[in-house]
């Protein structure tokens, strides 16, 4: 049944896509459908699990197994699925409201447990499906239907939260960066443990151009830094700027000479100390370039493997359980 070579078409379901025209979600979906055939996974072994929100419609459009759950709970449903079926490739699709507000608790615990699943968090800094209220990632002062005088709570940074939750793979990308997104999806799939990708996604209806100040073609090189393992943290149009790191944290320098280049910090996602990645995650507009790509990637045992090891050890020690013996354990007497 399984075709040897799958195509983008094989991953496109028969459902009509219902996002607003121009929504950033389209690009993410297209990239996912394009990359999936390259992952080499039989499509029946792929499951997309989502919560509630515009992003969470995603599973309907992928011709794989899919579960559109309830608000915020996709990580919890995915956990049960993965514990039950460790061999499946599980992809969680969530949004800033779904994953960082109502479901933040589940997200934190998913990340710290390090199940081998992938999380795509579409961050558009707004509640789209409920028609435009500010979200936990909206900037202070955001004027929306529920905050006519401006929002007063400080935004949460998804990547910082993921790092603080001891996530083993943390990355960030733009919806409009096809090459970047595809490379991250592949890397996430390769990673053994929970992969977390925050995708800055444009909601052209309720929060248009929320990321334009850093993602537009003419500013992107200056306002973001693409992280590559083992490469210096260079950015700017001709890689003419760099990030140096000392005891006070990061600062920006102009890179004009080989000597300058020497000073630029070399990115190491496998850095043993997560405070490096956390420091990176705190770099923000307008003083710093926003880091994109893989901030952190380390190997840790996965939850489902550890659990399976306990099961195996128990079988090794006690033998495969016999029900009659179990029922008749303890003090048994005859009448």
């Amino acid at each position: 049944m399984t075709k040897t070579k799958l195509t983008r078409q094989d991953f496109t379901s028969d459902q009509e896509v219902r996002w607003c025209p121009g929504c950033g979600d389209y690009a993410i979906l297209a990239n996912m459908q394009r990359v999936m055939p390259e992952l080499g996974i039989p499509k029946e072994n792929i499951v997309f699990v989502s919560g509630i929100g515009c992003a969470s419609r995603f599973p309907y459009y992928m011709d794989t197994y899919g579960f559109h759950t309830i608000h915020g709970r996709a990580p919890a449903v995915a956990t049960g699925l993965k514990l039950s079926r460790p061999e499946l490739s599980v992809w969680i699709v969530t949004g800033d409201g779904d994953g960082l507000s109502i479901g933040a608790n589940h997200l934190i615990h998913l990340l710290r447990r390090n199940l081998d699943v992938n999380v795509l968090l579409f961050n558009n800094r707004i509640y789209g499906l409920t028609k435009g209220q500010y979200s936990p990632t909206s900037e202070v002062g955001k004027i929306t239907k529920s905050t006519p005088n401006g929002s007063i709570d400080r935004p949460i940074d998804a990547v910082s939260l993921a790092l603080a939750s001891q996530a083993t793979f943390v990355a960030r990308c733009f919806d409009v960066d096809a090459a970047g997104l595809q490379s991250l999806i592949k890397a996430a799939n390769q990673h053994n443990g929970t992969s977390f990708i925050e995708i800055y996604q444009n909601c052209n209806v309720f929060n248009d151009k929320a990321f334009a100040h850093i993602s537009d073609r003419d500013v992107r090189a200056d306002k973001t830094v693409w992280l590559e393992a083992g490469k210096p943290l260079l950015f700017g149009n001709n890689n003419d700027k760099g990030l140096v790191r000392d005891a006070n944290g990061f600062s920006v320098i102009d890179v004009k000479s080989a000597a300058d280049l020497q000073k630029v910090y070399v990115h190491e996602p496998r850095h043993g100390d997560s405070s490096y990645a956390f420091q990176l995650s705190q770099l923000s507009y307008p003083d710093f370039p926003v880091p994109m790509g893989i901030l952190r990637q380390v190997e840790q045992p996965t939850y489902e493997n550890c659990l399976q090891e306990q099961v195996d050890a128990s079988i090794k020690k006690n033998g495969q359980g016999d029900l009659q013996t179990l029922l008749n354990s303890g003090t048994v007497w005859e009448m």
Partner: protein
Amino acid sequence: MSDTAIDEKNVNIRFAGDSGDGMQLMGSLFTDSTAISGNDIFNLTDFPAEIRAPAGTIPGVSGYQLRFADHKIQTPGDNTQVLVAMNPAALKANIQNLVSGGILIYNSDSFTARDLKKAKYLENPLETAELLQYRLFGIPMTELTLQAVKNLELTQSAAKKCKNMLALGIIIWLFSKPVKPIEKWIADKFVKQPLSAEANTLALQAGYSYAEVSELFTEQYTVAHANLTHGHYRKVTGNQALALGCVAAAQLANLPLLFSGYPITPASTVLHDLSQYKNYNVKTFQAEDEISAMCATIGAAYGGSLAATITSGPGLDLKSEALGLAIMTELPMVIIVVQRAGPATGMPTKNEQTDLLAALYGRHGESPLPVLAANKPHDCFYSVLEAFRVAIKYMTPVILLSDGYLATGADAWHLPEIKDLPDLAPIFLTKAEDFTPYQRDPISLARPWVKPGTPGLEHRIGGIEKENGSGNISYDPDNHQQMVDLRKNKIDGVLADLPLPEILGKDQGDVLVISWGSTLGAVATAVEQLQTEGAAISAMHLQYLYPLHNGIKFIAKSFKYILIPELNTGQLWKLLRMEFLLDAVPYNKVTGQPFTVTELVAAMRELLAECEKTYDKHQPLR
């Protein structure tokens, strides 16, 4: 002994002491020896509500109650005939349940000014008139224990720890039970600590000999062998039976089990037990919260595992939204609710039946699911199997209700042969022409169970209303009506498998008592007692609370009065009135305590008297 309250057919004994005194162990060993010698048993334990209450204080008292009898028993008994109190606090906490003329055995070494003060006694009760109605046996248990083990190299505190064995030796003698099985238990338990083995054995024997030779007791008691069905038995608490039921269900379904839970009293011990059964293809998951435990259960069911979660009332509230998703996606799973006194935190260690309506109706939207209730500690085992049978056959979440009384209470379980247990093996759909995820079995109305990983059957499910058949998102008004009806009809269809609830007694008469859940033992005992007196009373105990068997209303018509005793303010009473227009009399108690047989008998008598008084016996009310 003419002046004692001891009835040799049926003894109710309570061991009470400080939580560090080893009362649970003492009780459980005594239970084993009574069971081995052929008595029927029922036991209740009460642990202190506080985790580490100061030693010697009332909050620190731990109790173990055992009833053993020469006949089949269904309750732990209304009150105590023998109380063993290891200190003044234990006495104070338990004396009110000792019947007048009952035996009080106490550790006289502990009635010091210091211990009396800790128990908040202003005067030594031994020196007041307060205890005159009992038969008092003061025994210097601490001193005797120290004497017994004096030749061993033990610290003073280690030596004192053996006094529960000394007390056990006394009780073993008093009730003519064999001492050998306990000696064997000690030898097995302390095989790696020979010193402890010796100390405990010496203390046990010293207690036994003391009782025998001291002439303190003038008589020994013998509770004869009970005439129970032939077979192998063990003692089991409701929570142990739930855990064993989950393992058994997984084996009978030939599926791995994922059991998810979040710690909550009084349900947690089921999670503890199951976490030790990993070699039975069991995985346990302690989730970050109740919602997650529910959702992980949904995820595991979707993955094709046998999936269950356990909680108590507060957790049921939190799980309710996700339960709606389980109903909408029509996946099989079992949600066990061990009820406790509510609302909010309520009284976590106390017992109620107050979550019935929450289980039936505590969700938004039209969201029916089967609800059944266990009725005895050992019945928890069979209830789990039944819950999974229905969950798998009808592709639905099922709520199984237990409660705090069943959770920690234990009865004698006639062990089943595995071959007599039901086959629960599901059929997974692996191939289909024109497959759709919401195609239905024409009889059960269940949709197919398809495991992700099945080639060619890739599909999407979710919480949005489905088009019947295709499973595509649908906002069509007629389709929603149809799906709401289908979901209800499917659950109502469970009735096709269910016999009419059994009637204890004649199928007509003056009073029919309808009950559910853990009150069965007390209700049946009360009804049987009145039946022996000739009263026209019968009882019907409901296993299923949803769907309700239609036959209930027809049977009810053959009685003048219907009495519904419940440990709530009338939830089944409301339900039966709502469903069947049943005009019943509620009898309710919400104290955190189970019904006593005595109070049920009184309530039943009152209604029986009403029949005599108001109505001509030959004139049915309805």
